[in-house]
């Protein structure tokens, strides 16, 4: 046991010390946060420049209303849009030509042309140097529409205020019913669950590769026989796998601290920076999801880690390992491909079967737990099967490993590996 501890310590320190680990651990959450925050933040970044917009109102009745409606403010309280009325002394086209020139000369940011027949189907025009700001176009378009619709309604003798009350859309609140009652679900829970499943998938592959590389390095550097003169091959393998699991938990712990800090403080920060985002709710994840996450990480990790260790012991170089690693990686990719199906049909028979199959269960059962907590018996069944399969894989890998790790030269074919397993 003391020897295994020495190996665990060595593996842990050697990896935690690498630049790759430090950068990955710190930049990982920063990068993920940036992916989420930057697009959201950009939406709320206020334009801090007033825009001067000309209006050619051929009806002569809309300008006042439009000026009232477009009262968005900048940070300092001044109006975002400054509307200037232009009246056509001669033909409208001449005035439009004049305003085109003003826009090009940057005297105006844009101008709006409202034709006389706007109420009966005519089209208004928005002319500017660049027209890609859909936020601004939306503001102007909806202001114009509501004025014109109001005008039309009044023309028919109807009260626009009443009508808009009648036309109010029906709200569709989504709620989740569970054994613990009805909960409000904003959709954020789902997104974070999705993220958890992806984290599990990525770390399983990542740490599997580290183990693979570690075993191959031990073999190619010819270190292994020196180590084996002090301990059993199984102790070396166990120490390596547990040591790297400890690295994984360290990384998760650091990320969890980041995450907790983010949920705790980010709302305040976001609200302060972007008052418009005050309604933004940080989604909450029930704690049982984290417990299952850890359990399935442990199960999945040991299952895949032993398989990667077995492959590492069979080959002589990382290049040689690639062919053998492929089927193992496929076992991890298949559940990712099935994710959307499971999310849409969490309780279908196929979903239940798939999520109990040991190689898929770490990812798929966790996903089902996130989407819709399955009956406990199913979770227990998938965990039991996962545990038994993992024990079986450890047993068989230990047999392959102890022979393979001392074999150099030609890569063994399947029949030889079966022979290895039979050796005393």
């Amino acid at each position, binding site marked *: 046991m003391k020897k295994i501890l020495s190996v665990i310590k*060595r593996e842990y320190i050697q990896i935690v010390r690498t630049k790759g680990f430090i950068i990955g651990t710190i930049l990982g959450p920063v990068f993920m946060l940036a992916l989420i925050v930057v697009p959201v933040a950009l939406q709320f970044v206020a334009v801090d420049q007033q825009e001067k917009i000309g209006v050619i109102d051929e009806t002569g009745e809309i300008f006042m209303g439009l000026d009232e409606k477009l009262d968005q403010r900048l940070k300092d309280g001044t109006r975002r849009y400054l509307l200037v009325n232009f009246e056509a002394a001669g033909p409208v086209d001449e005035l439009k030509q004049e305003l085109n020139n003003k826009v090009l000369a940057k005297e105006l940011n844009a101008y709006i042309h409202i034709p006389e027949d706007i109420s009966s189907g005519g089209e208004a025009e928005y002319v500017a140097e660049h027209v890609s700001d859909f936020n601004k176009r939306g503001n102007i378009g909806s202001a114009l529409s509501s004025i014109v619709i109001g005008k039309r309604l009044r023309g028919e003798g109807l009260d626009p205020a009443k009508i808009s009350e009648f036309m109010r859309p029906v709200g569709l609140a989504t709620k989740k019913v569970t054994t613990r009652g009805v909960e409000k679900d904003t959709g954020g829970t789902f997104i974070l669950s999705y993220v958890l499943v992806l984290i599990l998938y990525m770390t399983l592959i990542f740490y599997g590769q580290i183990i693979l590389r570690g075993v191959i390095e031990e073999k190619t550097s010819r270190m292994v*026989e020196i180590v084996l003169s002090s301990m059993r091959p199984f102790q070396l393998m166990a120490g390596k796998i547990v040591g790297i699991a400890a690295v994984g938990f360290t990384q998760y712990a650091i990320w969890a601290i980041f995450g907790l800090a983010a949920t705790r403080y980010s709302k305040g920060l976001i609200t302060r920076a972007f008052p418009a985002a005050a309604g933004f709710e940080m989604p909450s994840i029930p704690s049982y999801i984290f417990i299952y996450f850890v359990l399935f990480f442990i199960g999945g990790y040991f299952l895949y880690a032993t398989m990667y260790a077995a492959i590492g012991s069979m080959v002589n170089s990382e290049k040689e390992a690639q062919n053998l690693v492929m089927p193992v990686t496929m076992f991890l990719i298949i559940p990712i491909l099935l994710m959307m199906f499971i999310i849409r049909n969490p309780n279908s028979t196929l979903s239940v079967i798939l999520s109990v199959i040991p190689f898929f269960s770490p990812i798929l059962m966790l996903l089902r737990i996130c989407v819709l907590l399955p009956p406990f018996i199913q979770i227990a069944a998938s965990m039991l099967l996962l545990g038994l399969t993992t024990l079986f894989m450890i047993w068989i890998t230990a047999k392959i490993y102890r022979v393979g790790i001392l074999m150099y030269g030609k890569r063994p074919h399947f029949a030889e590996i079966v022979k290895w397993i039979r050796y005393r």
Partner: protein
Amino acid sequence: MNALEISRITKCFGDFYAVKNLSFCIPAGTIYGLLGPNGAGKTTTIRMVMNIIIPDQGSIKVLQRTIDEEMKENIGYLPEDRGLYPKMKVGELLIFLAELKGLSGQEARAQIDRWLKRFDLFDWKMKKVEELSRGMQQKVQFIATVVHEPELIILDEPFSGLDPVNTKLLKDIMLEMKAAGKTIIFSTHRMEQVEMICDNICLIDRAEKVLEGNLNQIKQQYGKNTILLDYEGDAAFIKSFEEISKIDDYGRYMEIKLKEQVDPQLLLNRVVGHIRVNKFEVREPTLNAIFIEKVGVRDEENSVSH
């Protein structure tokens, strides 16, 4: 007392015999040469002594006890296929390996410093292994083998890659250890080294023992009908002499085995005048000659039977 007792061990890999019915004993406080051509089964035998692989039949006793994992703390093993973790610092790696042998960090540190100084490597303690030359890595590996002061030390080709100065240092340390009562198993292909260092030998070929015993006695058995000739000139004519059963010519040096009952003086008389004789020595055969004879003969037998 025997430091190692191997009795009738057999190891098969599939239908291939790596070691077949092998027995030998090593008296404590001696240096034992484990010899044999490539693939003879030496490494498999050593791995079984180290409990790395388990014999199909037979038993192994180290220091009078059946081998188990704890025994490994009393054995130091320098494998032929050896290397070090390239990214670790020399000091850290040695502490790690000493801890695996049951030493505490503190004990290990003192021992490691002492050994590093002796091998002139102390300045390299904080350097990464990959920055060391091959010879330096060899010395680090040797330190790892003996840092826990084992009673039984197994050295598989310990001198390969070492310059003459370090070879001498290592040989001196081996003799010191023998004087201190330690037992050393020495495996190599360099017969002249075995001749100079070993007390007893065991020669293995094709999984089986072909020769075993005290080195001096073995040589005496082969009789004093070998001549070492140190010469200058063209000595090709000697090869046609009928009295010679075997000849090994190195160009300036010749090892000649005479047929039974042939007087060496006869040969001396014939060569004088034809070549310049610097040295003419009548003695028992070299271990090299015995090795080639034993292994070579078996090869011929085998090729006939096929």
